[in-house]
């Protein structure tokens, strides 16, 4: 589902309703969009819940994000990264605009145990990492994927990619460090540890 090459479009930073243009596109595009929707729906929804902490709002935001992507389809260079980035922006906007409306039960709810907020933080962190991963270069993403998804050792990665073992280590080190820095910048300490 490589997007068609075109100029990159910055994700929208402000809210606003989308007017659905019923544009006729090629079947391939539709399939790609639908496929993207199916693969990313869950991850995005979790991310949004982690950010805004309310499912209704989260769903609204995810829907909005997809509808916007549809409008901009063909202009977005990296749709997956764009989705995460846009969703995050929308969520942050929402939080900013609704800062006063934060659920009144927040404190009582959390008083019982840190479980929910921790998990929500986890959801947010995972979403953020997904966003950052989507924004990485293909090579870097591939490295991370081999390490974490395929669970390969440095040596195996080296064999498959032709990069030397020490270089694999070096690059993963910088990738992880980068992610750690970004997570901290977003105010997330990371996992439940």
């Amino acid at each position, binding site marked *: 589902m490589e997007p068609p090459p075109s100029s990159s479009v910055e994700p929208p930073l402000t809210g606003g309703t989308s007017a659905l243009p*019923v544009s*006729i*596109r090629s*079947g391939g595009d*539709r399939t790609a*969009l*639908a496929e993207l*929707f199916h693969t990313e*729906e*869950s*991850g995005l*929804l*979790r991310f949004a*819940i982690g950010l805004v902490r*309310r*499912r*209704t709002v989260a*769903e*609204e935001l*995810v829907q909005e994000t*997809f*509808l916007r992507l*549809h409008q901009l389809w063909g202009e977005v260079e990296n749709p997956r990264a764009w989705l995460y980035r846009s969703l995050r922006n929308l969520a942050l906007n929402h939080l900013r605009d609704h800062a006063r409306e934060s*659920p*009144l*039960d927040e404190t*009582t*709810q959390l008083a019982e*145990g840190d*479980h929910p907020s921790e*998990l929500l933080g*986890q*959801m947010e*962190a*995972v*979403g953020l*990492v997904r966003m950052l*991963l989507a*924004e990485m270069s293909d090579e*870097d993403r591939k490295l*991370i*994927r081999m*390490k*974490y*998804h395929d669970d390969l050792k440095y040596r195996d990665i080296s064999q498959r990619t032709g990069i030397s073992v020490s270089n694999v*280590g070096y690059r993963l*080190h910088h*990738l*992880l*460090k*980068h*992610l*750690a*820095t970004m*997570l901290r*910048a977003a105010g997330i*300490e*990371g*996992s439940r*540890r």
Partner: protein
Amino acid sequence: MNHSEETNPSGAIPAEMEARIVAAVVGEASAFELAELERLLAEQPELRTFKQQIEATHAVVQHAERSERAPMRLAPERRAKILAAFGVPAEVSPDEANEAVILKFAAARRRRRKTWAWTSGLAASLTLASVLALRVLPSSQPMMVREVQSAREESDFVRAEGRLSMEKKKREASPLIVEKENVEAEPTDGPTNQPAPPAAAMALSSSDTLAKPKIEMPRQLPVRVAEVQEGNRRLYGAVRIPPKKPLLFGDQMKRIEPQAGGGKLLDAVSPTGANGESRTVGGVVKPIDKSWGVTADEETIALSPFEVSASRDQGGYMASNSIAGSRVRTELKDLGKDLDFGKKQTFAYIVATAAADDFLTGGKTVAPATPAESSLSELKTTAATVDEKLSNLKADQREPQSAAAVDNRAEINTRTEPVSTFSLHVSDASFRIAQAALARGERPDPATIRPEEFYNAFDYGDPSPAAAERVGCRVEQSGHPFMQQRNLVRIAMKVPSSGRSATQALHLTVLLDTSGSMERADRVATVHRALEVLASLLTANDRVTLIGFARQPHLLAENVAGDQASQLVELASHTPFEGGTNLEEALKLAGELAQRHQDAAAQNRIVFITDGAANLGNANPQALATTIEQLRQQGISFDACGVGTDGLDDTVLEALTRKGDGRYTVLDQASDADAGFAQQLAGAFRPAAENVKVQVRFNPARVGSYRLIGFEQHRLKEEDFRNDKVDAAELAADEAAVALYQIEVLPEGEGELGEVFVRFRDPATKTMIERSWPMLHDPQARAFDRSTPTLQLAGTAAFLAEKLRGGELANLIRLDDLAPTVNSLRGHYANSARVQQLVQMFEQMRRQSGP
């Protein structure tokens, strides 16, 4: 992408050092390198900080890269809208639309399920509370139980009370909370318990929405319900139905989602619930269940041309193609059937809460405000009622037991309380009593149901450990058949067959009830048989003293050698029966005699044989317990053997033996006094492990919550595990004991489930022995009906117990769904009389109560 180091997170750490730490975190370092690193980390705190950051990131990346087991989905309308906007090809859209409807429907169902689950929890506690309140008044026995366990349960009560009011507060506070709870469930639960708000809001639709189509279907649909999920075992409850077979949902449901209990599907065809009546609204027949606090209107999701009715997750789905299009509906089960007032109130309250939740948070599709508001006020009044009830109970000081039971039977969050400690008490008395009651066609008293005595009534054939090991442990798990995201874990402990104390002499004082009620022929036969078995177990080294008692205790035989013990049978048969039961006196005499013949090298025990302390005389149970406890401290244990099952004061006997370190057995008929009984008595007489305590430490990173099924009376405090002054149960040679847990495994968690510790005293050396075993995580835990026969047996026994005692699970447990498992048990344990009894009980229960 740029990896520029915006800010060096940890000051000036050499890049080479960082690379080493990263390598260690991602598992690339050798043991030597790790050791070296460990040393450096100890010296340099900034390295530790860096390592923590990398570890945290590592964990998050792992999550991000791992495929999700339970993907989350948007609400169906949203999906439909998005896909429509995408202009997804026409051949896909009916499916999508269908799927949307199902999702909507499933969401409502899930909501019902959730509501139901915690309603029944609360309802159960309330019922239990009121039942116990009633029971406590007329008799003094529960008083004793209470006092016996006073301190601990009192505190439990306060805690439980606090928890209840906390929950209540939560519900009262705001509907938003319900949403929060959902969110909380998300990362682990996936979509299964996830009410999608807009869809759920649809559940509110009043009858006028019936007319308004929510989704316009492009054309007449095939009669079919699309499968929602992609090869995931967590179904939304959707089924792909072949066209032209619209009414075959029952079987299909059963096959695909057994826990939904599609067995009752035929009911779905008739729209009338058992207690309900039908009426027609907008051409759609809807059941009205009067027992519900809310009208069925609120339960109907209407879509045209679809009509979806949701209710508790019980029925299944029915489709008919009578209108242009199809109908999909769940069966509205008769929800109110078993509900008492308190439950109904709670129900009304919960449904109202759910409704209010949707109203306030659901956003767009909302019902008119008035009903929701009135529900809110209704729920407040209901909450007030509950509150009042609770405070009444508390004020009367009658309820420590029930409150403790509430506490004991709730799921426990591992984050707040990861450790579960209990005394490994083995008995099957409760099973026997229930079995006898069912055989008589009666429903056993829920107060006598102790699940641990159900699932410990069977020989699971767990392998015996080597004698040197002292104790063996086996852990197995499977999915929970009735609860989503829950697993069952069976922990079996077994003591080796060669108990070292086999040569230890036995000094017995038998206390035989000779009151009038024991004169019944069947009881006489049972007692004789029991004494015969007892005599057959004794050797020349052993000593027996026999006391008969009614109004007065009579010494019948003193310090008879074991090989002469058969005389006792003769002796007992010539003892006249008389009125009255003065247990207090009898126990005093027994204590004196037992002490007189006490031998420090021997096992010293009092065995109490009675048909039920129904008239304990004026005995103060508290005083009895104190006496028994004092005797135990002097090294004399107390066993009880109940004869017959009607009128047996089960609770008191059970409590007394618990105090007395002894066994409690029940003999319903003479034939019971055979192998099992002999083994039990012999076991009690020759313990291979004393003061057996089990502690299970769950790993909160892997297990979200747990519940020990049963053992409510045997729970210990965490710190009591290694406090050897705190008394616990005994295990005999070659005896196995089983504990069954229900746990919530976090699919994205890490590490093993936890660790099992067992601690006991070796009766031969009097030294304490402690062992532990890890409980490994089984990511491919099998479904209950495909798990090992041992786990199926334990689980089935536990479920039947829960069903009989009306616990939290009782309403979730559907006997019909257990039938296949029971059938396979019947075959697998064809030679076990006990298991066949269980199978019969299952069938009796099914006949008595329906599914």
